């Protein structure tokens, strides 16, 4: 009976630089969850948008942020296109640059 609440979910594509890997993101799924589900070792810690470990740079496409990034990312980072992968859903296919562990302070 409750199946009427279920809907068919199309997928979108995220291209991850610098690896050139493409991953499928189901509708309603977050970028980080999709990457981890597909076996990628994406840096992360809290998964709720509070630590900043999963940050990435959005190169093209659009995302819908699930939480205000301004408490974790600086205004400069936000202007430069940084996003938090654990709090990002896709509005279109995207291309992102993953910030690797060695780049983090």
């Amino acid at each position, binding site marked *: *009976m*409750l*199946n009427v*609440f*279920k*809907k068919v979910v199309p997928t979108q594509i995220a291209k991850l630089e610098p690896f050139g890997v493409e991953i499928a993101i189901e509708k*309603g799924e*977050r970028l*980080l*969850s999709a990457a981890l589900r597909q076996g990628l070792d994406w840096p992360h*810690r*809290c*998964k*709720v*948008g*509070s*630590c900043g470990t999963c940050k990435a740079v959005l190169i093209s496409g659009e995302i*819908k*942020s*699930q*939480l205000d990034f*301004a*408490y*974790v990312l*600086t*205004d400069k980072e936000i202007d430069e296109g940084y996003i938090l992968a*654990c709090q990002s859903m896709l509005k279109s296919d995207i291309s992102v640059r993953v910030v690797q562990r060695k780049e983090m302070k």
Partner: protein
Amino acid sequence: MRTFAVNARYLIVPIMSLLTIGGILLGGSYTWLGVALFGVCTVIDIGTRNIHRRADFASDGTSYGVKRFQYGVMYMMLPVFIALQLALAWQIRKYSVSASEAVALSNLFGAILSAALWAGLGIIYGHELSHNRREGFFVSRLIMALSGASHFTYAHVYNHHLDLGHENDPATAPRGRNVYAHAWHSHMGQSHYSFDMESGKAKRRQKSFMNFDNRWIIGYLFSLPTLVLFIWAGGLWGVAAILIIWGISNFLLEALNFMGHYGLIREEGKPVEHRHSWDNDNIFTSWFFIEIGRQCDHHVRGETYFWELDDVKGPNYGVGYFELFLYTLIPPLFRKFVQVHLDHWDQNYATEAEKKIAKEIYLNANPKIQSAL
């Protein structure tokens, strides 16, 4: 059928909240219905203390939970909690206009207690909605604002999830603290954290603290309609009623925080793991509290919907929240109960560094606590 059963079992609080509203509206001794239901739930929880079961998953590992249905229910709880306040305000208004002719003081007290206990359960929806979806976060703030605690949503995500098990997290109760002291420290600490977040943001943007984007101020402003409603309904009586409701509902909120992490320790900078939370997952607690008792899994997979949380074999009190809550109300009893679990945690879960911190805590504990250990 299975999908229906799995989703319907999380409707206990919505149904009982509606019954509580009905009782308050009916008046007379029905106003005590909410208190009676809370008592019945306590009895059921104690009676089912030994029945534990995992969340249900289909053979392909997918959950039976239906996201749109569960979100619909959680969003609907906002108008339900508003209706609870309106029903109580109506009874207070009747009392203040016609005094005891229309409403006996004892029944008015029943209505206030009933409303307070069920308003306090707003936390389970406020909590779940704080984690998923931007709209959900906003609804969470509105639900928490009905209890004067809109700061919770920000502090929970940005502070509690990051600093869990460490002294930087006001919501983690250190060993030796009782629930009454914790309610105060945790509430004030989280509000302070949210205040600091906003003042830091304002400074970075070179704005005054008093700005239209200050979520700490806006959050408290969300509570204004409740305050105005109760002042209109009963003047000083109304103020007294809302203070009782906010007091009890915030106490319940902080009691959940208290039970979820009491005495657990994490070294600063080390990842949050299953061992940094206590699970309370007997069957009634799991269904009533929409799996909020699966804290071990929740804190490691914070992005996971409640119906997908699982038993991860983390530290477990072995009893439900209602039963444990009763113990917490009597601090010596709680300390005696929890010490066995803490010793087990120290021996079987803690790292060497965490054991060292635990030892220091015991050495520095005041003599009263030491003698109780």
